């Protein structure tokens, strides 16, 4: 009964400061507390809602932590083989050019096993949106080294830290795809603070709206955290991200269409 009393007292329309979009399903998110994925999911669905495009948006989920993205987003979605999301999205978009089509991929999916699909979809200038959540680690499989793991950073497959001379340097694939003539808009954002999330949402909206222009691919990287993989508390993880990830992966637009 106590709950009801509280509800009656506080949950009133005029007190509402935040409400999840209807385009997120009622299913509780399966991500770790503190993980950035939930925020990015919300932003993407808010953008689709604002564009009034639920009936013409198709998403492609990757293999990785966000493999089950389709459980949370109330739109038509396909689940791709590891790294192949841009290939699926290419076909879906070309066969339904009037639809908004996006991929939602992590760093292992997009920048390791799916490098070829990523680069070629970008190079062909497919009129899709790629959302790239980069947390420098393989979360779902239990914290292995990713193509974007920082030098010296520990993971279960670089337990003494990433040694660049034997394991290679982290890949700045976002800068790489920005070099390709097929990309129209390339930006790097974060969602660790309300201000950053607001900026990221603007970028995502632009990336979706660009699909109407048919001028090429829009690529949005979100530098994010993985507190469980990094073995930190959520607050520590966000601070570590600010101190270590941002200097290597600086936030901001990388390629902006000329007006």
């Amino acid at each position, binding site marked *: 009964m106590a709950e009801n009393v509280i509800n009656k007292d506080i949950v009133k329309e005029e007190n509402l400061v935040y409400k999840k979009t209807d385009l997120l399903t009622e299913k509780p998110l399966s991500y770790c507390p503190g993980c950035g994925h939930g925020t990015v999911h919300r932003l993407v669905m808010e953008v689709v809602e604002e564009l009034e495009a639920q*009936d013409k948006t198709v998403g492609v*989920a990757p293999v990785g932590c966000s493999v089950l993205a389709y459980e949370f987003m*109330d739109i038509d*979605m396909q689940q791709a083989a590891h790294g192949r999301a841009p290939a699926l999205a290419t*076909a879906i978009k*070309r066969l339904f050019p009037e639809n908004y089509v996006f991929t939602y991929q992590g760093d292992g999916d997009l920048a390791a096993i799916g490098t070829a699909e990523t680069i070629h979809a970008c190079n062909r200038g497919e009129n899709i949106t790629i959302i790239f959540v980069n947390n420098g680690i393989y979360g779902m499989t239990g914290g292995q080294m990713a193509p974007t793991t920082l030098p010296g950073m520990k993971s279960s497959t670089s337990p003494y830290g990433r040694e660049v001379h034997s394991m290679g340097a982290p890949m700045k694939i976002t800068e790489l795809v920005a070099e390709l003539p097929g990309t129209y808009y390339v930006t790097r954002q974060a969602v660790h603070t309300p201000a950053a999330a607001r900026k990221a949402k603007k970028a995502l909206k632009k990336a979706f709206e660009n699909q109407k222009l048919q001028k090429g691919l829009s690529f949005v990287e979100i530098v994010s955290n993985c507190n469980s993989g990094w073995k930190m508390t959520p607050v520590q993880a966000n601070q570590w991200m600010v101190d270590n990830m941002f200097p290597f992966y600086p936030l901001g637009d990388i390629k902006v269409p000329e007006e």
Partner: protein
Amino acid sequence: MKELRLMKGNEAIAEAAIRAGVDGYFGYPITPQSEVLEYLMLQKPEERTGMVVLQAESEVAAINMVYGGAGAGKMIMTSSSSPGISLKQEGITYIAGAELPCLILNVVRGGPGLGTIQPAQSDYFQSVKGGGHGDYRMIVLAPFSVQEMYDFVETGFDLAFKYRTPVMVLSDGAIGQMMEKVEVGEQKQRLSNEQVKERCPWATTGKDANRERNIITSLDLDPQQQEDFNHHLQAKYKEIEEKEVRFEEIQTEDAEYIFVAYGTSSRICQKSVQLARAKGLKVGLLRPITLFPFPSKRLLELSKQVKGILSVEMSAGQMIEDIKLAVECNIPVEHFGRMGGIIPSPEEVVEALEQKFL
């Protein structure tokens, strides 16, 4: 009036795709099937029917484009040859696991590895037993002429959509490269997006207000649900085995021995039947047209009539295993084949029959 053309098998299947109203083709060049993509590009199918044709960055990307397009409910196909088909296995098992219709052409060349570009039939196991990981099957159609390369586009898509399953056309370098007379069909209209939504209410066409969202996935982390799904797949394959077996028999009525051969081998064996009959041997031919489902029931019947079966394949002997399973040890089953891109001569086949059985 019927329109007759002289075409390569690879060209015939490409023309058939345009005329059948196929929505998308995604491929990557490899000998001996590159003419499929070349022919499509030359024909400007975007202008003829609005068909999407794209040269992908790899066979892996191409089959995953097929996966995407098929998930959107469209008629999608790809083609490749053996090494490329190996690369496509990842996408094929996802397509089977997500129960999507599509058509995959394999113009088989000799292997293993890079092998040779000459014709072979050594991808039988890979085609009929699954190919990728997990318990799945594809319907496998084996054309023996350029006309059948043409005809099996429509047959294949009909079956693919009827059962929501990938269908493979298992051809070989000889049929892909050879030219024959082809009767081409009428140009069919591609389905409109509204028709696609009606035919495939499960497809990712965009969730409108009056339905739940559609999800194309092969993932189910709950073992019980995954087992239930596997039972569902197996029931589907059983139904296919009951309803969709296709084969052709040549002079089996009075036969004491039969050849079992598909595709190019079955063409060779037709001549071998003539040669053997000229020698007074009562020989016939059973040509499986579907390799999965396999004409096992008919072979079991024939095993009560004939004294022996010679499986003739351009491989070390793969289909012979299915023949042996079918005839339940009633009669001896022997293999004759050539490998590495060599096509056996009709005379060799008759000699093998005589050596093994007479």
